[in-house]
């Protein structure tokens, strides 16, 4: 079973249509070339397995784009800016994936845009809130020599 197949369906949270803006976002892509390309319609359902299985994007960025380095959501690129960035990345941490077809990247873009961008507030996470409280309590007691405990 693929990694994607084990994950919940993305359809309920998918933003279906993705507009194509002919913006290169200053990432080195040729505006002229992009202007000549036909508009790509990204499919988040097709993008999910491409993200998780085929191109292993999840490996660095987490399956939900939230837990890796770096966090992908909220994704501020336009679709064309995203495609240009991935194909011609200038960043040392992420090489350019020049051989990945633009349609695949449009689908991955649509998938990322479908992912939740927010994290729940700390007040809703008692396990994490408890850790923070204990940490702050430990700091308050400093410089006492007592062991603060977990």
């Amino acid at each position, binding site marked *: *079973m*693929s*990694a994607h197949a*084990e*994950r*919940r369906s993305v359809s309920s949270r998918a933003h279906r249509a993705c507009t194509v803006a002919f913006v290169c976002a200053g990432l080195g892509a040729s505006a002229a070339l992009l202007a000549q390309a036909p508009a790509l319609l990204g499919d988040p359902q097709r993008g999910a397995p491409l993200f998780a*299985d*085929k*191109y*292993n994007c*999840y*490996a*660095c960025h*987490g*399956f*939900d784009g*939230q*837990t*890796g380095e770096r*966090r992908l959501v909220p994704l501020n690129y336009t679709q064309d800016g995203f495609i240009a960035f991935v194909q011609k990345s200038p960043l040392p941490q*992420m*090489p*350019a*994936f*020049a*051989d*990945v077809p633009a349609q*695949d990247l449009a689908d991955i873009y649509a998938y990322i845009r479908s992912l939740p961008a927010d*994290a*729940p*507030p*700390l007040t809703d*996470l*008692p*396990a*994490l809130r*408890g*850790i*923070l409280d*204990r*940490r*702050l309590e*430990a*700091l308050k007691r*400093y*410089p006492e020599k007592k*062991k*603060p*405990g*977990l």
Partner: protein
Amino acid sequence: MSSSDDAPTSAVGRRDFLLGAAAGAAALVPAASDAQQTAPAAERSGVSRPTASDARAEFVPPEPRAGAPIVATPGSDYMVDVLKALDFDYVAVNPGSAFEGLHESLITHGGNRKPEILTVLHEEAGAAMAHGYAKAAGKPMMTLMHGTVGLLHASMGLFQAWADRVPVFAVVGQLRNPTSVVNRPHSAQDMGSIVRDFVKVDDQPADLEHFGESALRAYTIGRTPPMGPTLLVVDSELQEEAIADRTKLRVPKLTMPSPPQGDAGAVREAARWLAAAERPLIRPGKLARTPAGWDRLVELAELLQAPVDVGTYGSWQDFPSWHPLYGTGGPGYKPDVILALEQNDLAAAVGAMRAAGGKTISISAEYLFQGHNIHDFAGYTEVDLAIAGDGEATLPALIDEIKKLGGATRQRQARGLRVAAAHKTQREQEIDAARYGWNASPVSVPRMVAELARQVQNDDWAIVSGHQFTGTWQRRLLNHDTHYRYNGDCGGFGIGYDTPASVGGALAHRAHGRLAVGIVGDGDFNFVGPGALWTAAHHKIPLLLVIHNNRAYHAEVMLVQRTAGRRGRGSGQMDIGTVIREPAPDYAKIAQGYGVYAEGPISDPGALGPAFERALARVRAGEPALVDVVSQPR
């Protein structure tokens, strides 16, 4: 078959039966074995009597001891007396004919106590258990291996212990004159050469007196910083040799040497630099050999009010992770003096220091390390003051010298407050970052660690695995407030250490009633993990093993994918050879097959807390348990 099946008072075991049956036919066994052939097979349920075909298939021709006189006091009894003098609690054993004499003596002459035999299913697991045990117990464990093949299996575990500077007392059997086709490859012209690149000393004693001396020498050398594993090769005939007069064969007196301490003048100079520094920074490596080393480092940091940066991976017994001085001091803290303690990779930090006009002091026993084939040290580092000596042993003198100098207490207090504020900010940022992906499926690593923290907050717990593959979330979300909370990484960055070393660490903590938890990668578990779990089940070693199951050799997924991108080809095929799915192994079923309580695979984060609760109830009752968590990559 469990070791209880092989107990000397029980019915003859299957292996003995096979040996006896076949050897009897060949008229090679003593009369006692003839009687054994007629004895009932092991009566434990599920163990069936072997067939004649089984016997032929499994028969290993024994070394010809037929007709040999019964030896009342064999040499291996003396060997056990020597080992008892070294205060070993346990010896990891995967049986082999090259040490059958010593094996028998450990059980009968030694009473299977101090050391008690720990049955292991792979010699690498045995070495890793000894490695993890030594760090948690503060003293070495012994591991006993078959000639050539057993040592080769164990070699990876011994290498990791060497790279981690941890003593493991390894003993390998050597068949002196093997005649059977099976046993010939299990002797060697130079057995120690197999692992000589990563043991501190090896020796093959020629007689029993020599064995006693070599054992004590290996023990003292192994435990003297820089520490490391050692190897004794024990000749099979020496194990069988009759002791003519036991009273003339004494066990040498053990005297542990004091660890090497830094030169007094150099320590005074280091104290002057540190006392005068405006922004000192302490960078410990594998510093604390004992709890006292942990306490001394806390004392030094608080005396100087200096931040303590343990680096990406940290180490066992380094520094309390929630202490206000833990960390780099914040982004604006530019150190003018760095004190490196037991660091062997300082090049980057020193380069930055020199560029900024700062100074670096290095105190380390690594300067006393002999050259080796495997270079686990960085390039030559241009420090400003280098002190060859054990960090822990040198700290008391350094602290005394700094106290003698007095100093600007108010300035230090102000510094400490700034460092503590930076620490607080950093920790709040970490907690904030942990919220992301909280409800994601697969489970996020911080969620996994936080759920665990909630479950063990009222226990005296200890993390017995490394955190190489959990993105240091353990250190961030768990309060390492005492020296035994964290047992450190493998040392050599090789896969396969975490699971058996967790069993070894848990074994050490069992004596103190501590709750041991290991968080291990699925890649790690698949090496020798299942067999190590059996050892935990068989010997009733309480341990919660959490499988951080990202279904891949995750780092390599990233590396190969990155290479494909860099080369502009094949980006869609890089899961070949890097992922562990299709089928995804069911680690809970594997553990259950080895007699261990297990749950999983769990990919719903909401189900994790209750699963931990149920598994921990079993652990608190004294048994191992496993929870398989399908997780985000890191």
